[in-house]
């Protein structure tokens, strides 16, 4: 980053100046340097889901969050925009609000455009349904996914109905994961209630290939594989659409 002391930006080459006049808001950017805005177009967009998935309540500021009110309109925009042909979801999340996570996952499942998810770092708890909601999922070799039971916090009423409510909430997650991945409900529950795996909790940590072996994730891979897969799926979709027209 260079410090620029001049009050005005240096004159841009004549060819780019015309473009800059069209985007007047850019003039207000300080320390702008060259008015060279890359015009390269991309047919895929990427959606990073990082930190806690934040839903109905605002979490204290020490949390890094991805808010559902940001993600959901973006997904609608991606679905609507004809220039966008595919979506890459990048996950590095520690879970979060069950409803918000499931809402995002349901939106992703119902998208008509090809979607690929990539779990980098971690895709824990409610990140699991989000990761499996894409048409094809990847996990980095070192990335982890924690599967553990849902807990209730705060003041609880100690009646059997509380347990039933909790069980129902957990079923929503389990059923979603079972429906959208190759894992069976039995296996997923087994991983969820495993003891001796986590230091202060029951559940399982799946590292990279483990997640593929249990059938949760489709393949091990990184950015290269994900983008390649997405482009293949886009080409396939186009071919299918072409066939329908003829």
């Amino acid at each position, binding site marked *: 980053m260079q410090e620029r002391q001049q009050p005005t930006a240096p004159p841009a080459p004549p060819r780019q100046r015309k473009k800059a006049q069209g985007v007047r808001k850019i003039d207000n950017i300080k320390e702008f340097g060259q008015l060279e805005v890359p015009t390269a177009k991309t047919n895929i967009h990427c959606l990073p889901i990082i930190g806690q998935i934040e839903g*109905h309540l605002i979490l204290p500021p*020490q949390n890094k969050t991805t808010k559902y009110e940001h993600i959901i309109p973006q997904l609608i925009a991606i679905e609507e925009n004809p220039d966008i042909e595919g979506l890459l979801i990048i996950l590095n999340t520690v*879970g979060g609000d*069950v*409803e918000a996570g499931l809402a995002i996952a349901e939106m992703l499942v119902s998208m008509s455009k090809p979607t690929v998810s990539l779990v980098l770092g971690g895709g824990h*708890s*409610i990140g699991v349904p989000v990761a499996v909601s894409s048409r094809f999922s990847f996990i980095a070799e070192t990335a982890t996914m924690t599967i553990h039971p849902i*807990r209730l*916090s705060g003041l609880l009423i100690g009646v059997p109905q509380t347990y039933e409510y909790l069980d129902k909430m957990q079923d929503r997650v389990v059923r979603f994961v079972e429906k959208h991945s190759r894992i069976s409900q039995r296996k997923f529950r087994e991983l969820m209630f495993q003891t001796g795996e986590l230091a202060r909790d029951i559940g399982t940590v799946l590292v990279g290939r483990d997640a593929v072996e249990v059938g949760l994730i489709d393949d091990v891979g990184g950015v290269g594989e994900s983008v390649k897969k997405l482009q293949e799926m886009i080409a396939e979709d186009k071919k299918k659409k072409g066939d329908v027209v003829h």
Partner: protein
Amino acid sequence: MILYTPLPLELVLSVEEETTSPYQEVELSGVTLVVQSTGTGMGKIVQVRSTNPNVYLRPEFQPGQQISFSHFHTE
């Protein structure tokens, strides 16, 4: 609300002394930016919020860039 996270809840929900976030959202040429205020109408880019990967390549949106946003609508 049920939080489904491996993080201890006391870590997620603990409220620290400073509860107001120093960040604010600004929209600049159609891109939503999270900026840290450095003075009236001035800020430093903390995060770019877009799904368009090309936006992240634009030099004026690099994290740490100083921007002036006094004329824009802020939330």
